[in-house]
């Protein structure tokens, strides 16, 4: 049954069925059964909204513990650019990378540079593309999964360029294995992640194929140790540290970063799943054909708003924004060579290694006629419900409850409004039954009173 691997687990010990997660889930993938939250695997897109919503901390993101490092002979940390936004303004990427090495990684790689290369590759793809528009960035794995599940027809509009984290990891392993005479599998590449979904994209990529990364460590887990490790890192001059930052890549940490640094004209930057759903609905209606490119992140403000980050997302968003502005002002462009990128692009270096396929939710029934009938039943059941979406039945809305009943996953009597109605009907039946029997005779043969008299 577990066809899909997910990045979250519910701890039944901690869960007390308060329904917060069920209410925030954008794909209605959570139900409360026997007082505990359960996830419907095929509907979950790993957005992590439930993690943030749970007041008990019962929803646990499955990232890797630090100890995983010992399994490899050589380890490399590849931080998401969102990590650079977690600390004060004076702490720049060079210091963070040095801190990671002090924590026990053999090396730490600045992924922002690869992000810059991929930005250029996206630009090339946009230029060449002749098919339907707008094209959609695949940087956020939740967005890719949302399209697979709810917008299967937009799959061909996802840019088939691999993500920087995968390309960087593939490249590093190749180089390191040559340099140290190691096998590629002896090198462990760990992504320092702002969200749990990156873990899934490693264990079970959305496209067919295998990830080049070996695990993901959450920013929130590494934050404390990293902060102390950085204390002993010698500070480079601000100007010098600034010069090593790839302006194109740093923007990947926040929504709109790619559009801004590439200076794309007809592009949109969207964040937050509910907003993305509105935009995707518009694409499906054919409304946004004049837009070339859409950058969409499920977390508010982009990766800086990930559920595993530490700093307030508006502060970290601002830090990245100011950094981009400073780099623009200082005219610092530590960027990849576009000619080199074009050459690699032609060699298909940047393209996804596997094909993306839709992952539509199972229909109400495999048989079309039966499915239509069940959909009709769902409608009829829904009409009898109170439509207040109280959630007491364990389904997030009355409409999903009607669907759960049709699917045989819930009973109509699970609705607390349905139950009193049943009681009323039942008591009426009882009354009628009693009336039919006639009034009770106090001295009926066999009764206590009658026995005494005998």
């Amino acid at each position: 049954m577990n066809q899909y691997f997910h990045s979250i687990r519910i701890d039944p010990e901690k869960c007390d069925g308060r329904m917060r997660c069920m209410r925030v889930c954008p794909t209605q993938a959570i139900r409360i059964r026997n007082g505990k939250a359960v996830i419907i695997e095929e509907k979950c897109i790993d957005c992590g909204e439930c993690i943030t919503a749970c007041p008990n901390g019962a929803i646990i993101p499955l990232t890797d513990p630090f100890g995983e490092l010992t399994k490899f002979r050589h380890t490399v940390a590849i931080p998401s650019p969102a990590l650079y936004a977690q600390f004060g303004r004076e702490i720049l990427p060079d210091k963070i990378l040095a801190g990671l090495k002090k924590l026990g990684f053999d090396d730490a790689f600045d992924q922002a540079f690869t992000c810059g290369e991929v930005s250029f590759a996206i630009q090339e793809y946009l230029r060449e593309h002749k098919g339907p528009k707008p094209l959609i960035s695949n940087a956020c794995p939740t967005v890719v999964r949302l399209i697979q599940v709810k917008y299967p027809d937009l799959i061909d509009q996802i840019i088939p360029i691999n993500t920087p984290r995968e390309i960087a990891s593939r490249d590093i392993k190749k180089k390191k294995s040559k340099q140290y005479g190691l096998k590629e599998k002896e090198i462990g590449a760990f992504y320092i992640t702002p969200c749990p979904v990156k873990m899934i994209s490693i264990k079970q990529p959305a496209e067919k194929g295998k990830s080049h990364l070996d695990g993901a460590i959450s920013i929130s887990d590494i934050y404390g140790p990293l902060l102390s490790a950085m204390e002993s890192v010698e500070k480079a001059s601000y100007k010098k540290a600034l010069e090593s930052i790839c302006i194109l890549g740093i923007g990947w940490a926040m929504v709109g970063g790619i559009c801004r640094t590439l200076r794309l004209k007809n592009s949109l930057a969207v964040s937050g799943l509910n907003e993305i759903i509105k935009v995707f609905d518009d694409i499906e209606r054919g409304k946004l054909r004049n837009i070339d490119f859409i950058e969409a992140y499920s977390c508010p403000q982009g990766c800086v708003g990930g559920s595993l980050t530490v700093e307030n997302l508006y502060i970290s968003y601002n830090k990245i924004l100011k950094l981009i502005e400073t780099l623009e002002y200082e005219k610092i462009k530590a960027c990849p060579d576009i000619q080199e990128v074009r050459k690699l692009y032609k060699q298909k270096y940047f393209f996804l290694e596997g094909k993306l396929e839709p992952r539509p939710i199972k229909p109400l029934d495999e048989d079309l006629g039966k499915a239509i009938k069940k959909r009709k039943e769902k409608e009829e059941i829904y009409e009898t419900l109170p439509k207040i979406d109280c959630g007491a039945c364990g389904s997030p809305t009355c409409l999903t409850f009607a669907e759960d009943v049709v699917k045989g996953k819930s009973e109509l009597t699970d609705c607390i409004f349905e139950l009193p109605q049943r009681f009323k009907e039942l008591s009426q039946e009882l009354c009628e039954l009693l009336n039919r029997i006639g009034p009770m005779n106090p001295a009926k043969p066999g009764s206590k009173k009658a026995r005494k008299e005998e």
Partner: protein
Amino acid sequence: MSTENGLSKRFEITGGDFGKAGSISTKIKEILQEIGINSTIIRRTAIATYEAEMNVVMYAKKADLTLHLTPAEISIRVYDEGPGIENIEMAMQEGFSTATDEMREMGFGAGLGLPNIKKNADRFEISSTPGKGTALDITIYLNQEGKK
């Protein structure tokens, strides 16, 4: 057409309500997804419904939109109360529009609505009484995937 083995659902559209425009096409799309209709057909239906919805919002007073679904076909009927169309032949031409400048500024009224419905439908019928209203009958077949 028998309604016994089919699903019917009625929606109301209010003219001038730009805020809700598009919500019916989204609801219909969700119904079709639950039933497991092929995604290309869903997209064609969503586009045709959206265009029909927009026409009502832009020009008419109000309308009834009925979805009727059987294992053989999807049918969308839109009956509106509105100004009607004087010259249907002209309205069916790409680029012809009576939209106001405001509508055009909002990105509507490119004169592609009706032709776009026709393009996405397998069968399309339109009739109109000027001063009274317009009736659209849109059909998309389910048993011949990829016909269009």
